């Protein structure tokens, strides 16, 4: 059985399933299970949000998920099981956009692994959100540039893990 489960689910195929994610990362030898669930929030920068549309470059996004899980295993393993799933399409307020779960023998590694993976998903995966507001306007969220240091263009900001995106969960 693989220790990584990662996928993208179009909204037409149903909602993401946190319970299934917990099942996947569970093991008789794992005493620590953590999970992050990102949901669509109803307010951002003072504007009432009705929903969010997620656009995604699927093949590369899945590779980012896989690499993040592999890095988490290298850092916090060897006994780690990771789940990453992300929704694609239009979601309403309260709908689940992303699920990350980690299972390890003890809690510290589980917390750290899940945190590392969700930060990679947010900062490195080719995923874009467009917020739809109560007044009828829609805006693509600002985000993290993937240009790196050699492209002439530079990062819009550093990648400390405590910065705030437009619609951070």
């Amino acid at each position, binding site marked *: 059985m693989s220790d990584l489960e990662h996928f993208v689910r179009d909204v037409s195929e149903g909602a993401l399933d946190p319970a299934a994610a917990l099942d996947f990362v569970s093991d008789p030898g794992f005493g620590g299970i953590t999970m992050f669930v*990102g949901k669509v929030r109803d307010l951002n920068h003072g504007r009432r949000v009705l929903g969010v549309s*997620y*656009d*995604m*470059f699927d*093949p*590369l*996004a899945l*590779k980012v998920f896989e690499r993040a899980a592999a890095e988490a295993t290298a850092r916090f393993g060897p006994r780690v099981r990771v789940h990453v799933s*992300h929704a694609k399409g239009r979601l309403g307020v309260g709908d689940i*956009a*992303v699920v990350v779960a980690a299972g390890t023998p003890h809690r510290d590694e589980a917390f750290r692994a899940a945190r590392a993976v*969700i930060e990679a*998903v*947010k*900062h*490195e*995966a*080719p*995923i*874009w*959100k*467009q917020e739809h507001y109560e007044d009828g306007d829609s805006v*693509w*969220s*600002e*985000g*993290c*540039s*993937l*240009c*790196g240091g*050699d*492209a*002439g*263009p530079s990062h*819009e900001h550093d990648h400390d893990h405590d910065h705030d*995106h*437009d*619609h*951070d*969960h």
Partner: protein
Amino acid sequence: MRVELSLFGAFRDLEPRGSVALDVDGERVRDLRVALEAHASARWPAFQPGLLAVSAFASEESILREDDRLPADGKVAILPPVSGG
């Protein structure tokens, strides 16, 4: 070379088809950036050069750097700053 460029995020608003075919004078990613800027400036009234400046190019396998050769199959995606999760 001929590049079929897939558009994502804010770039989709500029071209409803979601992709654009470009003739690139050169074989490096930086040459594609030049070609896209020319196309966008000429064809897309709402184009913002600042968005292109912070956008990366990628194949299905990885992010491409400016000095990288363009993929032989000509399939490239442009990735504006990301905001997943």
